[in-house]
């Protein structure tokens, strides 16, 4: 007879669970049951962008809880925010996406009094064009885009994007799965700005990329470090960090920023206008920019940390690795990515056309 009551019990449990799920913030209510009410900070960041021990330390210090949600591209971040995902406190968009988010009014003005660590940034990162006064954003991690290659296979160090069009490496090339970066590299190779809004120039870049496609093994923004490390590709268009990570597994990997130049980027910490815990968010940003904490993050991810002092705190081999900390001489040929306005449609169509071939 007992089993007969099971469905009824199940329904009750289900309704209770639903009630729990319907409360504004499920984490908070779940927390409340066992640990009193600690504020929960929602951190929206890149996949594998933060070490758990760094978060744990902040959680201890602030008696707060940090929940991490991940995105894999700037566009995905914006799409999520636009589709009404409120509740995130801190996010990490890149430079050009900061500009768009600012225009859309998605960002909260920063309280610099609460973020003293923002004062001592690397000189290259001060007064960035999209937010010179750092009213809404503070650079956090930064670097360049270049080519990772296996020096065992490619004996003469390449110095031009042209190597990515070399038929000898057919099927052993990976490109970022990011339309702006892929077009950016091509445009620089053509001697154009990577922010070109000229329809004819974009078309010409598209033609070059269509020529290149048979040589490309895959378009990926996520695992080219692994592809390089296992030798599945010998040339990878990518951010310095993952290429530096591949070097650890396969020492013959090298990194180069081609002579035509490429993207310099900075992922920036921002507080969202809809953030439920704004003050905590400011303190979190200050914590992440603490030179010690930033150096640890830099060491883990192999991206350059924005605080000027942090560079001195990471081991020598990382500090001197051009894939991680861009040497001064490359800056003359680097360009920041900007929002291209209406031309985005031209890029989009060109990218779709490239993919369908």
């Amino acid at each position, binding site marked *: 007879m007992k089993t007969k009551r099971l469905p009824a019990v*199940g*329904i009750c*449990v*289900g*309704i209770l*669970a*639903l009630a*729990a*799920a*319907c409360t*504004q*913030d*499920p*984490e908070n209510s779940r927390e409340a049951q066992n640990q009193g009410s600690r504020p*929960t900070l*929602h951190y*929206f960041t890149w*996949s*594998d962008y933060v070490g*758990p021990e760094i978060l744990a330390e902040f959680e201890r210090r602030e008696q707060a809880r940090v*929940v*991490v*949600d*991940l995105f*894999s591209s700037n566009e995905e971040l914006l799409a*999520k925010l*636009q*589709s*009404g*995902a*409120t*509740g*995130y406190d801190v996010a990490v968009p890149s430079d050009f996406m900061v500009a768009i988010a600012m225009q859309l009014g998605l960002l909260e003005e920063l309280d610099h009094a609460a973020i003293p660590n923002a004062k001592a940034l690397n000189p290259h990162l001060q007064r960035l064009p999209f937010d010179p006064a750092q009213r809404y954003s503070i650079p956090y991690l930064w670097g360049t885009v270049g080519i990772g290659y296996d020096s065992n296979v490619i004996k003469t160090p390449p110095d031009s994007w042209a190597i990515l069009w070399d038929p000898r490496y057919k099927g052993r090339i990976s490109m970022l799965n990011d339309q702006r970066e892929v077009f950016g590299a091509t445009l620089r190779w053509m001697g154009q700005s990577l922010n070109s809004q000229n329809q004819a120039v974009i078309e010409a870049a598209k033609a070059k990329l269509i020529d290149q496609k048979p040589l490309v093994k895959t378009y990926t923004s*996520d*695992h080219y*470090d*692994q*592809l390089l*490390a*296992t030798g599945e590709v010998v040339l990878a268009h990518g951010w310095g960090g993952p290429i530096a990570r591949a070097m650890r*597994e396969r020492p013959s990997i090298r990194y180069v920023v081609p002579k035509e130049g490429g993207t310099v980027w900075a992922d920036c910490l921002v507080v969202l206008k809809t953030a439920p815990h704004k003050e905590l968010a400011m303190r979190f940003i200050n914590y992440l920019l603490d030179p010690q904490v930033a150096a640890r993050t830099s060491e883990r991810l192999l991206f350059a940390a924005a605080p000027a002092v942090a560079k001195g705190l990471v081991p020598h081999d990382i500090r001197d690795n051009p894939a991680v900390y861009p040497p001064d001489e490359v800056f003359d040929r680097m360009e920041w990515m900007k929002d291209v306005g209406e031309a985005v449609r031209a890029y989009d169509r060109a990218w779709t056309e490239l993919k369908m071939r």
Partner: protein
Amino acid sequence: MTRGGFWLKLATAGNVLFLYLPIAVLIVFSFNASRLSATWQGLTLEWYRLLLTDQALLEATFNSLLVAGVSTVMSLILGVMGALGIERLAARYQTTVDGVILLPLIIPEIMMGVALMLLFVTIKLPLSLLTVVIGHVVFNLPLVMVIVRARLRKLDPQLSEAARDLGAGTWQVFRRVTEPMIRPAVIGAGLMALTVSLDDFMVTFFLAGPGAATLPLKVYSMIKAGISPEINALSAVMVLASMGLITVSLLIQRRSSS
């Protein structure tokens, strides 16, 4: 017949190999000590240990179970009621309704995700676990209705009429006559809904808000980050879990049929 039988057996063996080889390989290599290589480099349980200490993964699992549980229960309640309701409609409406409830099952998943996202943007309901649950009920509800309805159709309507003639009220007829007869279908529908919900990536992908990542979303981002033995270990656990679920469903069905 013997030669035909041979080819048939060969094709069957090929099918079984095709279906199981990838899964088996995954499980075997979840014990491989090497991080990147596909060559065998010794036995380890390290990847399973990593799984257990991955806080984000545990949270995603909790979210998945919560979403699957709540959406299944809601779909069962609404779905069984709905299936009984259709029964009472005039025959010509029944055909129409039967067609309409198939719609959510046949339109592309991505379309459903997109449509619900636009709805929540329009009514300004912030994306969260709640929106994920709503989305899951949208595809689980018709599933339950179709399965329960198929069972109801096979029932002899005279049974409930007889019960009524003996003075049973609507609720009594349901409790004493209808419910025991459709129970296997309800259980089957519930398990199906549970599975579909635990498996769903596409709808959740569009509807998940802060802190609402489910297991499939987490698995997807892990796969995106590259091949890793940790994913193999996770896969092994998930395969075993689904085998467990099937076993449970078979046991329940066997018991209720005997």
